[in-house]
């Protein structure tokens, strides 16, 4: 009797536990909930922390956040949007995905934006990068959250000590000379820090701008890969020599973050990278070189074309979303002038998401907090994804090619370049191998 009793209670316990485990979450409150997927960059973290402000002014909309690392997020979003899973109402995607996904019919077109959104205030190259400019579906498909180009950061104190004057338009040859003068590994300072970590959004981005400026291109007009061309050879040899002679050891594991940490702790004489690093480098809390920071345009070689990149993170609404109106209300709020002012007032003007609106750069409060403001604006304005190479090309993009195959091509090429930088293979072999794998990918895709 005792046994069967204990058995019964055990059974009951088991079934209760199973039931509890299987019960899905209880229904949501009456407000419409939208799920926002975003990356874990500082500006997005600020956006997440302002959730309450949005929900206060829009009591009928509730925000749910999914924050992931860039690569994980990209894969997660691609799975969902390609299968029309409908798990997300707002997606944070970049200049690369927007035109490709828009062409597939995966994104909601954003026409008839409210008048107070002031669409004309958006910076043109950034706005164009998020639009389809050809075909029947022309229009804007995502709203820019922040934008960036690339530039050269340098240490004013070290330049002064070495007696170097920074010209208005530095060249890569000059950068090489300066790096040799500044390089003092015994004192813990390397001449230059550049990205070496493989990936289409890492070293390939920087190398693409170098190749552009050395007169090269990814593909010719017939989509034939050009990685075995003299321009690529020259640019990559230059990069590998520069980094081996005057760069930090183990540069193949340095991406944006690692270089930011190196430069802000005073270990690099120069650094060519995203303009969005400026706010962090100028913040004395995060950077020990805040008072010694100089900046100049990204170096050039044979041509100015394509010497600095263009990128923006933007908010888009997938076609599969079931709450398109609420999602639209949210993305117009998060990319509005009102939002930028809100961030400026609550978080400080140096922390606002930059590079999206002309009005930001006309704002005296921002100009005062960010001495690099007008400089960055010029860099963004002069980056032209439709004319980024010396010779004609069939694609759009400065540091990338807006075709679906580019993610894998860019990463494979990046891996070959990292192997060359690490000395595992020669530059010639790395480029020949990159050319073969790119040709194969393009052939398989039917180009």
């Amino acid at each position: 009797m005792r046994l069967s009793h204990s058995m019964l209670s055990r059974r009951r316990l088991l079934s209760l536990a199973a039931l509890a485990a299987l019960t899905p979450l209880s229904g949501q409150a009456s407000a419409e909930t939208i799920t926002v997927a975003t990356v874990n960059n500082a500006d997005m973290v600020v956006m997440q922390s302002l959730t309450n402000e949005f929900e206060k002014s829009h009591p009928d909309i509730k925000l749910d956040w999914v924050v992931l690392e860039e690569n994980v997020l990209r894969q997660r979003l691609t799975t969902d949007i390609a299968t029309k899973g409908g798990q997300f109402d707002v997606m944070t995607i970049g200049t690369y995905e927007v035109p490709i996904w828009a062409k597939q019919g995966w994104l909601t077109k954003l026409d008839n934006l409210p008048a107070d959104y002031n669409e004309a205030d958006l910076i043109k190259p950034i706005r164009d990068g998020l639009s389809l400019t050809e075909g029947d579906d022309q229009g804007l498909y995502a709203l820019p959250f922040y934008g960036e180009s690339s530039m050269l950061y340098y240490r004013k104190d070290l330049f002064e000590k070495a007696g170097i004057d920074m010209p208005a338009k530095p060249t890569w040859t000059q950068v090489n000379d300066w790096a040799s003068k500044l390089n003092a590994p015994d004192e813990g300072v390397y001449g230059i820090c550049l990205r070496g970590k493989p990936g289409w959004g890492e070293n390939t981005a920087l190398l693409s701008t170098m190749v552009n400026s050395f007169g090269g291109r990814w593909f010719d007009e017939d989509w034939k890969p050009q990685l075995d061309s003299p321009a690529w050879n020259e640019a990559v040899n230059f990069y590998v020599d520069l980094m081996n002679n005057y760069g930090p050891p183990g540069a193949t594991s340095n991406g944006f973050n690692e270089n930011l940490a190196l430069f802000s702790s005073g270990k690099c004489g120069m650094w060519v990278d995203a303009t969005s690093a400026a706010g962090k480098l100028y913040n004395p809390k995060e950077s020990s070189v805040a008072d010694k920071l100089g900046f100049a345009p990204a170096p050039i070689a044979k041509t100015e074309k394509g010497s600095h990149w263009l990128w923006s993170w933007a908010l888009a609404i997938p076609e599969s979303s079931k709450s398109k109106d609420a999602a639209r209300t949210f993305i117009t709020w998060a990319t509005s002038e009102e939002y930028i002012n809100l961030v400026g007032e609550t978080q400080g003007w140096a922390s606002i998401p930059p590079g999206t609106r002309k009005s930001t750069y006309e704002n005296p409060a921002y100009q005062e907090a960010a001495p690099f403001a007008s400089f960055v604006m010029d860099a963004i304005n002069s980056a032209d994804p439709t004319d980024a190479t010396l010779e004609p090309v069939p694609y759009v993009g400065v540091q990338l090619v807006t075709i679906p195959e580019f993610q894998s091509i860019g990463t494979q090429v990046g891996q070959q370049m990292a192997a060359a930088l690490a000395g595992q293979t020669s530059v010639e072999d790395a480029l020949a191998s990159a050319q073969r794998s790119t040709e194969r990918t393009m052939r398989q895709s039917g180009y």
Partner: protein
Amino acid sequence: MMTSSTNSVAAASMAVNASRARRSVLNRKLVLTLVAWTIALMMFFPIFWMFLTSFKTEAEAISTPPSLFFTPSIDGYIEIQARADYFKYALNSVVISLGATLLALLIAIPSAYSMAFLPTKRTQTTLLWMLSTKMLPSVGVLLPVYLIFRDLGLLDSRTGLIIIYMLMNLPIVVWMLYTFFKDIPKDILEAGRMDGASTLQEIFHLLLPLTLPGIASTGLLCVILSWNEAFWSLNLTTSNAAPLTAYIASFSSPEGLFWAKLSAASTLAVAPILIFGWMTQKQMVRGLTFGAVK
């Protein structure tokens, strides 16, 4: 005289031998202890380092050479709690891993029973085939699973993850239970049957109590595997059903410093299962070595 001296010499040499033998046993013990401690420390070091890092500031966390002595701060913990509610994710992890384990045991016990006590010609092949499904990389079936889940409305639900984790762990659970059950002499079950026990009574009153350590360790392993799983939890959940693995993932970033925050999030995420593991390690070891010595 002669004999006694020989005896005493023999005794002395025996004593020397014995002390030598004792010393060599001692030496061996010492070496083994040292090796065991070294391995244990090496395995524990990353967790210890993560724990230390979680109390550093972001700048200290990336400093080279790394700092061992610093003023601890709990800013990392405060900041991660401000950004996402830890307890929501922890509750999901608990519910999902316990649910998946219970469901897996519920299905595996009868199937292991039939395979252990009523084997057929194909039992061995079936067991191997079950295990072979574990060799398929998960990403290979991501799209079909995603589509099925979409159509069944299981995306971002705890039920969905419980089912996936149950399926994922089922082969291992069946295998482990099968080996434990096989060690039980058939005679005991037969004796029970002679006394008029039904199959269910046989399982509940004889088999389960006899193999409880084994079942417990299988269950514990299943809980740990479900707790740590990151691929499906990241791909099939968004916010409602996201467990701790998704919580950790949200603190890694390609832009800006995040090591201290990530360490704080990871410390919080592994703490429950670590404590759980410590508390149950006796059962685990007992279960895993269950029936090893006959």
